[in-house]
């Protein structure tokens, strides 16, 4: 083997081995959950686990969809996550625009306050928020979850948009202003197309934050009909007696919307997180 070939092989292995290890670490749990969900109950818990399913059944999915309210939980989670995503986009985008592109008194203070709210532990707000939501008759409604999720997702979203807004040259805004565009037009027509990756990032972030939120959903939602997936799934798998197949089927279905969203706009999310990392 020549020196060049050896160097090339070593470089290739140096790149691919970590990638393969990383892929294994990331994919293995999903593989384990999915294959478990199609195994017979006896195979799921047998003494020596099977890497490849020796049996095949859809009974856990059948039970999940026919004997539980999981479809309702799925619908509720989708509604809450979609609304959280939309409202976060509608609030965070103009907020970030004004914070990073406009000059007004107290701007820095507002920015710091927003960051502080992001760092505030949610558990401390549990009881006050519950009481507040009761007074405005929002306990046990999906709107309550949307409001809470937006409250926690927006500060990070605003912060995340900083690099995107700062990357857009001021000259573009000035040119639009000279053409008679007002602030709203500049934001909608000039800025938004240029910060699309950022919008994708905060959309995914808001959706996932909402999709996986457990603590507030478990306390604020009372009736089964309004329950979201994380809380509903925790309930239906049982406490003293765990139905492992049902649990794995539920976990598989729960990951699907997130995977689909990532498949659609995941590239923007990665771009969003790395934007501004190298300047």
């Amino acid at each position: 083997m020549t020196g060049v070939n050896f160097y090339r092989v070593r470089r290739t292995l140096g790149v691919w081995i970590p990638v393969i290890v990383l892929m294994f670490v990331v994919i293995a749990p999903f593989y384990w959950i999915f294959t478990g969900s199609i195994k017979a109950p006896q195979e799921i818990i047998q003494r020596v686990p099977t890497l490849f399913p020796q049996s095949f059944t859809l009974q856990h999915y059948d039970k999940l969809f026919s004997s539980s309210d999981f479809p309702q939980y799925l619908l509720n989670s989708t509604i809450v996550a979609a609304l959280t995503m939309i409202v976060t986009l509608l609030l965070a985008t103009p907020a970030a625009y004004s914070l990073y592109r406009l000059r007004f008194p107290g701007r820095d203070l507002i920015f710091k306050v927003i960051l502080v709210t992001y760092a505030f532990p949610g558990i401390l707000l549990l009881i006050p928020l519950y009481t507040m939501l009761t007074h405005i008759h929002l306990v046990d409604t999906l709107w309550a979850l949307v409001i809470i999720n937006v409250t926690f997702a927006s500060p990070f979203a605003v912060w995340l948009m900083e690099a995107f807004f700062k990357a857009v040259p001021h000259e573009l805004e000035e040119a639009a202003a000279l053409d008679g565009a007002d602030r709203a037009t500049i934001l909608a027509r000039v800025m938004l197309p240029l910060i699309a990756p950022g919008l994708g990032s905060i959309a995914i972030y808001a959706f996932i934050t909402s999709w996986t939120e457990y603590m507030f959903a478990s306390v604020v939602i009372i009736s089964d009909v309004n329950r979201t997936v994380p809380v509903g799934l925790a309930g239906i798998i049982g406490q003293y007696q765990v139905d492992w197949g049902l649990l794995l089927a539920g976990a598989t279905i729960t990951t699907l919307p997130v995977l689909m969203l990532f498949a659609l706009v995941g590239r923007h999310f990665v771009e969003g997180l790395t934007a501004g990392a190298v300047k």
Partner: protein
Amino acid sequence: MRAKAGAFTIALIIGMLFMAWGPVSAQEDVVEIVFWHMEQPPHRVERIQQLIDEFNEAHPNIHVSQEPQNWAEIYAKAPAAVAAGNAPDLLFAIPDFTPIIRQVGAVQPVDDFVAEMDEAHGFFPSAVEPYTYDGHVWAVPLWNMAHSLWYHVDMFEEAGIEPPETWDEWLAAVEALTDEEAGVYGIGLPANRHLYTDQTVYDFMINAGAFELYNEDGTLRFDNPDTVEALDFYSQLYQYSPPDSPNWTWGEAEACFVSRTCAMILQFTVIKSYEDQGEGDPENLGVIPIPHAADLEESGTIAYPNAVMLLTDDPDKQEAAYEWLRFLLEPENYGRFLNMEPGLFLPVTEDGSEAESYWSDPLVVEYEAQIRVMLENSQNGMLFGFTGGNIFPSIAQISAQNLLAQTLQRVVIDGEAPADAVAWGQEQMIEAIEAAEE
């Protein structure tokens, strides 16, 4: 076209609003009873709903509805709901949950109703006792759950050993049944910081004679030689438990048993999982009382009498709630209620324990011998902090921090001497109680 569609939509919304308003107006005289329980698995919710539907049909002036909750969050959720004024009328309870709801001033005494039901159905005293303190009864018992020692009969037969009655026999059996090369462990015991570990630790304490956590004056007596003996024996058995058992809750222990990886476990029941996910052979499923130390004469076990608290102070609602509970405790309904999870929930009334509705469930018929042993074991059941007629609500602070489990962890995971760990445990309990009082 758009204008027409808009008008149609508005008309539809208005129509729906009127429709929604109509039934409410028509049902003004109906007393609404909302009750929260923590039996969330779908088949349990379905069984409760069947009973609710029957009750509502037979009682047109009462409308009962269920709102299933989860034990994991009810400790935060229920006080928040009470504080916000939207608590349910009935709320399920276990003994150490009741003092927490009492602290927020929501629980109504149910002395007269419990006396009435006792006369009608005969409550087992051990089910009422944990809810009787400060001069009142604070919840209506509904069912009991008690640990037993579950084992695979054929494993014992192949090893030529008898089911153990004392600790020496138990240790010998566990040693004989462990074959790590074959992946078989003589016993599965948890060491997680979790309620399941609290429960199994207390099983050992009871069977060492250390069942009283408090002296009569309310001071703690956790740090005593019997507790040390219990933890010492736990650690002896624990070395034959699977390596992943430090992370176990009930489900993992049950899976270990059902998959025949564990020859024995301590559990409320394994029947449903054994039938659905395991070998499903009643002849091969053994259950016995938990073995005891040599100096004791009989076995005891941890038991959780589950009950329901009355939260509403509206007299009409109270009477409607009592009517619903009367319905549930009637023998022809009670068995069906308990069998929302056959082989787990045990009757707490004398006529309920003989009810045809209880013993006729197909799974109960199949595993009748095991369930009769469970029922017998539950008669010797007790719960930490609720023993000897003295109830100390501060047990809620000890339970909340899983201090029994934490003490055990110092022995079986950190390798600390049992006596030192028990002394540490008592200190932590005192601190937890003092912190709550501040």
